[in-house]
């Protein structure tokens, strides 16, 4: 066809050519480039200097850090690494936490690796057997000596709160979203009330109420575990947000899909399970993961009601006179930020990959 002419093959641009095209294509662009370079220089260079070049890397106690006035105090993190991961969990019992971490890691990896088979079965095990096993291992029982929740802390408690919240909020959120779209006025009304109640209250308030007020309402002699009440609060809170995300997905599935499923004689639940929800969840996957990431970060609020989660452990270390150096607090927070970033960014990357894969599946 004569009308379609191939563009002339261009030489690969050299670095100078590339910079001219991308960084200095106009006066305005050139100014932006210069400003950006200055900004990067002024922030990144001092930070790298502080975090790496001028930092204390080895030694024991604050004396190791004091000479490095302009650098991070990594011995603090190294010495506290046990607490950062396990809190005050008994040394001799820490293998139990390791086993739980390992099981979680294997389960997640299995679910994420595209080539591994039996994803459904593994998923079911992760949602049924794993939580029970994790509970027994962490709390104790069945021959394992009990470890009181007061001794839990660090990454372990952060993950317990986050994973519980994530695992509980998705199914609860789906049920609430379905409830909100139900034709039964009572179900719909209750779902709306529940969702709007939780969405209208800040999580921190909810956590305070769970920690301090719930015990007041309990009948005499009945105490409720503080961690359990916090877990329930987080799960209910995030399920309300999840419900709204899922509702968006449900609305985006065409009316024809509901009708085709109904016309085949699939009842409400089977229509939802096999036809509507798979499409709806796919549509709102990015928002679901966004919610998970938000939840992951919100777990740090449990430190305010007295749990020594990652943030709590770092803060308690900052307050420790044995580690009083000008850089301890900063080091702790930078480390904390890095840990959260790695976890949240991984989630976001995985969601991206999954999205691309799902879109490839039903090439529309």
């Amino acid at each position, binding site marked *: 066809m004569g009308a379609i002419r191939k563009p002339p093959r261009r030489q690969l641009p050299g670095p100078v050519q590339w910079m001219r095209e991308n960084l200095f294509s106009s006066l305005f662009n050139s100014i932006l480039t210069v400003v950006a370079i200055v900004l990067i220089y002024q922030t990144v260079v001092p930070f790298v200097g502080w975090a790496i070049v001028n930092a204390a890397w080895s030694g024991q106690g604050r004396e190791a850090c004091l000479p490095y006035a302009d650098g991070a105090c990594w011995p603090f993190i190294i010495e506290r690494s046990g607490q950062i991961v396990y809190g005050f969990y008994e040394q001799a019992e820490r293998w139990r936490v390791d086993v739980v971490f390992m099981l979680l890691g294997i389960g997640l990896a299995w679910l994420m690796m595209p080539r591994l088979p039996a994803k459904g079965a593994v998923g079911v095990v992760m949602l049924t057997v794993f939580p029970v096993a994790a509970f027994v291992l962490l709390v104790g029982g069945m021959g394992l000596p009990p470890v009181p929740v007061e001794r839990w802390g660090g990454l372990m408690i952060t993950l317990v709160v986050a994973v519980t919240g994530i695992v509980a909020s998705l199914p609860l959120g789906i049920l609430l979203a379905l409830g909100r779209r139900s034709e039964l006025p009572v179900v719909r009304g209750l779902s709306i009330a529940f969702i709007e109640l939780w969405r209208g209250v800040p999580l921190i308030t909810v956590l305070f109420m769970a920690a301090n007020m719930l015990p007041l309402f309990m009948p005499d002699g009945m105490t409720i575990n503080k961690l359990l009440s916090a877990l329930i609060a987080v799960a209910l809170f995030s399920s309300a947000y999840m419900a709204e995300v899922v509702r968006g997905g449900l609305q985006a599935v065409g009316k024809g*899909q509901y009708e*085709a499923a109904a016309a085949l004689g699939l009842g409400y639940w089977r229509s939802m399970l096999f036809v509507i929800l798979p499409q709806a969840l796919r549509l709102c996957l990015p928002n679901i993961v966004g919610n998970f990431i938000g939840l992951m970060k919100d777990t740090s609020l449990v430190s305010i009601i007295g749990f020594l989660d990652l943030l709590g452990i770092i803060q308690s270390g900052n307050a420790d006179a044995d580690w009083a150096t000008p850089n301890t607090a900063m080091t702790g927070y930078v480390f904390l930020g890095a840990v959260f970033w790695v976890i949240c960014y991984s989630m976001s990357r995985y969601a991206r990959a999954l999205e691309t894969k799902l879109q490839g599946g039903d*090439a529309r």
Partner: protein
Amino acid sequence: MNATAGSALAVEITGLNKWFKTFHVLRDVSLSVPRKERVVICGPSGSGKSTLIRCINGLERHEEGRVVVEGAELTGDEAHTQAVRANVGMVFQQFNLFPHLTVLENCTLAPQWVRKMPRKDAEALAMQYLERVHIPEQALKYPGQLSGGQQQRVAIARALTMQPRIMLFDEPTSALDPEMIKEVLETMVELAETGMTMLVVTHEMGFAKTVADRIVFMDAGEIVEIAPPSEFFTNPKNARTKEFLGQILR
């Protein structure tokens, strides 16, 4: 009406009235369809054709009158409606295949989960019907990878896997490019030859002429005229039918 006469009817609609809020969409509609009959329903857009056939499988609820399908009356009761739907297949204008499932999965879903058929049997059954609509080779593709005509034939196969006694078609060729209409109509003709009871909303007058036993003409929510094709096209009684035919046959 005695029991034997009632049971010979696939669909029996008497005194059907339906409103959308205040809009009276179906006005005192009565229609009896004996088993194995092929009925074509036509009429201007908005005359209530879709609403009428959607009342037959309970996709729309009616306020007044009786709709009896294969001896079972649609009362609005959920379990009951579902039982009726399992006996009534429906093909939509927009195909409405499930885009996240393969063609084969589209066809095995209902047999497996409504008929409780083991997966192997459901797959064998689905392949049998995909062969009947001449696309077994597409079984493992997703609907989005098929042409409109192929999708509509899958939709027909999907409805047939439930082994329904009645098939409803709501303008099955209206969303198709002209070159694909033929393949879908041919599939429907083949289905008619098997003796399936069919109610077809369509503007394909060629199909109506050759396949229909009776043609129902609707206008403004009413059945205006019912006649066999020979009479309907050559000697329509009603002025509104004449006008409609004048427009559609040109």
